[in-house]
Every structure is written in structure tokens, then in C-alpha cells.
């Protein structure tokens, strides 16, 4: 069992596709994860499964990997018991609130991409405003808090942290592609770039909100939470209102562009894009 626990989950899924299906049914989306370099034991811990559910999942994985062999299922050590629905600590709550701001931009991507493809007036300006928001708020402000302050609270070698950093880098690359496409006047490429960035960030935010941050909260001690909060407050003081300006620019986007954008946004919202 130790060998299974220490295996890279993507390798395990490649050899035993049933493991991926099992995890999907448990709400653990390793199959579709961009990085997927986590060990099996880290995934079980990070998703905060109850002890009973953890043993059931491990037993089924063992049965898939080594059918017919009786395997002893260990009790994995836990940072603290999972408290379903427990509110996040104040600093992690701040990050989740910032995600809500970022999701407001993500909800605008579909109508803006459509307008770029049709070559509509104002579409390029709207896309540039979005890029400015992504660079100034999502990256320089929000991701910087995570990378420079939150992630260093944990083992840098931890696969889940490395995976999140890697996704930040991928997101930056996609923004650069959008900027290049806009400069070259290639509306189709810019639209595709915005959509690829949206898809990446939507899933990234979901993983952080639902899995990573609750696990981090269970792991951080009280004193670390206090220091983290103090650091975030200092960062916000230093930002001197710029984050709020950028958020206001996104709020103004849907209003400034009139009915077409409003109608498309409502339509896309009905299709379930993050709002």
C-alpha cells in the first residue's frame, strides 16, 4: 500500500484508468488536472476525506491496482479533522473574495470573445481592459499574495503547491498570447486566448476555493493565520486603492458597452459560466 500511496497519481491513472474513474466519482478531479504530479497520499489528505471514506477509497484503489491481493489499509496522519462547511480563516477568506472579483471578468470573456470574432467596435478595448485587470489585479495583486506570502507557509516541494504555481505560470503565458494577438490585430486568436485563459483560471479557482484553501486552513496554526492576515493587510495598504480601481473597471465593462454585451452576458450566465 505504501508504494501506491507514494505513486504519482497521473502515472497510476495511466496504468489503471479505473482509478481515475473512481476518483472522479469521489469528486477528486485528478484526471483533468493540468499538473497532476501529486502523490496519492497527498490527494487523500488535501481533499479532507473523512477517515471512513478515506479507507474506502484506498481499499478500492488497492483492489484496482492489485486485484485479488489482501492489502492492509493504513490510517493516514492528518493535520486536523476535516470540519465540513467551517468558515475559512480571515486571510484565506480575503483570497476567496478576490476570486469572486476575478470571476466577474471570467463571466465577460464569452461576450467579449464573440465580439472580437465579429470585429465589433469596442471589443479590442474591452479585451485590453480585461488584460490590464488580469495583470494588475489577478496576477500582481492576488497571485503575488499567494506566491510570495501564502505558499511559503508550506513545504515548497509539496506537489499541490507546485501544481498551483505551475498553473499561475501557464495563465501568465496565455495572457501574453492574448496581448500579442491584440497587437497583431488577430481577433480570432485573441478570442481563443481569452477563452483558454478563462477555462484554466475557472478550474484553478475552483480547486483553490474547494480543496486547497480548506486544507491549508486545517494545516495552518493560529499564529501563522495571524501573521498571514497581517501581511495581506500590509499588501493592501501598499496597493493604495489600485485593486479597487481595477475591479471597478471590470464592473464598468458590461455597462459601458451597452445592450449587446449585457444581453450576451445574460445568455452566457444562463449557460453556467462563473459569475
Amino acid at each position, binding site marked *: 500500500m505504501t508504494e501506491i500511496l507514494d505513486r504519482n497519481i497521473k502515472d497510476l491513472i495511466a496504468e489503471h484508468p479505473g482509478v481515475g474513474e473512481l476518483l472522479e466519482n469521489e469528486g477528486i478531479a485528478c484526471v483533468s488536472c493540468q499538473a497532476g504530479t501529486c502523490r496519492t497520499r497527498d490527494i487523500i489528505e488535501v481533499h479532507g476525506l473523512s477517515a471512513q471514506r478515506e479507507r474506502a477509497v484506498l481499499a478500492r484503489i488497492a483492489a484496482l491496482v492489485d486485484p485479488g491481493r489482501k492489502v492492509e489499509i493504513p490510517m493516514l496522519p492528518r493535520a486536523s479533522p476535516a*470540519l465540513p462547511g*467551517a*468558515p*475559512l*480563516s*480571515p*486571510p484565506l*477568506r480575503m483570497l476567496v473574495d478576490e476570486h469572486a472579483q476575478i470571476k466577474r471578468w471570467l463571466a465577460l470573456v464569452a461576450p467579449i470573445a464573440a465580439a472580437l470574432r465579429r470585429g465589433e467596435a469596442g471589443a479590442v478595448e474591452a479585451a485590453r481592459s480585461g488584460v490590464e485587470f488580469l495583470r494588475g489585479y489577478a496576477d500582481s495583486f492576488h497571485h503575488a499574495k499567494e506566491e510570495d506570502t501564502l505558499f511559503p507557509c508550506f513545504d515548497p516541494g509539496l506537489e499541490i503547491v507546485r501544481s498551483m504555481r505551475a498553473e499561475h505560470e501557464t495563465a501568465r503565458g496565455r495572457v501574453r498570447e492574448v496581448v500579442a494577438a491584440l497587437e497583431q490585430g488577430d481577433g480570432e486568436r485573441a478570442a481563443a486566448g481569452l477563452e483558454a485563459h478563462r477555462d484554466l483560471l475557472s478550474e484553478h479557482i475552483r480547486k483553490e476555493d474547494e480543496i486547497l484553501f480548506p486544507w491549508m486552513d486545517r494545516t495552518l496554526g*493560529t*499564529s501563522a*493565520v*495571524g*501573521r498571514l*492576515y*497581517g501581511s495581506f*493587510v500590509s499588501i493592501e495598504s501598499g496597493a493604495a486603492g489600485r485593486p479597487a480601481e481595477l475591479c471597478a473597471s471590470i464592473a464598468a465593462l458590461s455597462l459601458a458597452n451597452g445592450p449587446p454585451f449585457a444581453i450576451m452576458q445574460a445568455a452566457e450566465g444562463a449557460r453556467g459560466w462563473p459569475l
Partner: protein
Amino acid sequence: MSAQGCPGSRAMQFEAEEMRLRRRAGAATAESPTGAVPSQLRQWPVQLHLVPPTAPYFKGADVLLTADCVAYALGGFHGQHLKGKALAIACPKLDQGQEVYVEKVRAWIDEAEINTLTVMTMQVPCCGGLLAMAQRAAELATRKVPMKSLVVSIQGEIIREEWIGA
């Protein structure tokens, strides 16, 4: 008020948690050995009326504000909760002159610039006033600090633990 009176002062008797757990596990009823447990207290005084809010041990500290009965109910209080923290104790039901408490807690937050505030109370209703007092002080303070609430059962279990904002 029910015919049985306030739960905070109703007389009750129950077996020790250790005996209850051993009985459930079917273990022998002989008591486990006990030994000296090192104290984690690093200051004096501890009663909220007596502690100076700007004492050095509060400066930048993680502060634990507990109801008087908590340390008696929780077997692992020193090692699991007090360790590394500055302490003050109070009884929201029986202490007199509690009007100064709000100002003391506010001074912790603003002048002592504490790192966090953890409030531990018992599950009985009369204990709720301690958390309410701390929250009033936090509203009056200009700084914000993360605040946590833990509620302890009379059998010595943590029955609720949550961050209640900053």
C-alpha cells in the same frame, strides 16, 4: 427559565472521559498512569481584571481569552491550547465590573497589536457573554485581527471551533 434552572449552574455528575472511552473500547478499567505535565503558563496575573493590557507578554502575541471553567474541563488545556499564547480568564456571568473588559480587549488589539485572539467558552448559555464582549471590543478597535471561537463541552470535548472574522 426551565423548572430545572440555568444549565450553567445545574448540578450534574458524569464519568471521566477517559473511563468512558475505555469502556467503549472494552479495555480494562484500570486507570492509565499519570505524570507531571509541564505548565505552559508564562505570565502572571491571569484574571482579566488584573492583567495590564499593554504588558510585554501581550505585545504582538496570540492571546487566549477563556472562561474560568475551561481549563478545568479540558484535560489537555496547557499543551493543546495555552502553549505559546498569552492568557486572560474571566467569568461573564459572575465577574463584577465587567464594563472595563471591553476596553481592555480593545487595548490588546490597538495598543498591544496582538496577532490573534482566541476566545474559549463552555457550552453553557451563560458563557456566551464572553465572546459577545470580545466581539464588541473588536468592533470598537481600529486594527483588525483574526478572531477564533472554541466552545468546550462540560465533558471536555471541543464541540465547535471556527474563525469568526477579523
